[in-house]
């Protein structure tokens, strides 16, 4: 429907703004790039509700020797 199309257009425009912000941190050549992909016409809530459904059980800290920091 045209209502749905308009909503998707707004989400797409929001994504473009979000991507511009994210890319403003990507200065080095190998840095991550953010842009249009198959999720660009989803709202952030739709994306979370559909794709970010995992939970992590608390795991014990690895007991080997510290090698960083």
């Amino acid at each position, binding site marked *: 429907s045209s209502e749905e199309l308009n909503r998707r257009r707004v989400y797409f425009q929001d*994504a473009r703004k*979000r*991507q511009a912000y*994210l890319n403003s*941190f*990507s200065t*080095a050549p*190998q*840095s*991550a*790039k*953010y*842009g*249009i*992909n*198959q*999720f*660009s016409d*989803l709202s*952030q809530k739709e*994306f*979370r509700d*559909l*794709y*970010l*459904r*995992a*939970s*992590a*059980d*608390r*795991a*014990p*800290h*690895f007991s*080997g*020797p*510290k*090698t*960083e*920091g």
Partner: protein
Amino acid sequence: LPAKFDWRDKAAVAPVRNQQACGSCWAFSVVGAVQSAHAIEGSQLEQLSVQQVLDCSIKNEGCNGGSPVRALNWLKQTRVKLVPQSEYPYKAKTGICHFFSQSHDGVAVKNFAAHDFGGQEEAMMGQLLEHGPLAAVVDAVSWQDYQGGIIQHHCSSQWSNHAVLVVGYDTTGDIPYWIVQNSWGPTWGNEGYVYIKIGGNICGIADSVAAVIL
């Protein structure tokens, strides 16, 4: 540790798959780790059934979400054999669990090791080399817009919401990074993979990491 290592070079990683509109990443990460461990043991690399884990691991919630560690606990305790994907195909919907007899061909999980490697990402590299690809849970909110390259910002730890498979690392360039297989299809990111900077627990990559033992 070698400066770079990638289980794909050893033909131990199955192709990138697509979970579609189903919150099944937790099952894809676990099945990915099991099928890689099976190949590393010397068997032919074979895709195993994600749908079986989705339908039968009842302490998880199918397409509504789950935890890799809970799924591995279920595999370990029940000694259920994961059957080939061709025998129990993926439908992107939670369904009724299909049972197979213990004599049916499949891959069982003997044990697993889940750890928090925060501050110890080098030790995590050792775990990757020793046990094969690792199931990890990350914060993937910013991945909605990811196109490629090495993620170094905009990714929190301790807010995990997505499960993935760590298949390798590369420390030869200016920015060392993890090579991570996602389950959003081969057109997403770097042909279905995402690269995450090593050190600093970016995206919470080291917070909850599980290795499978067959």
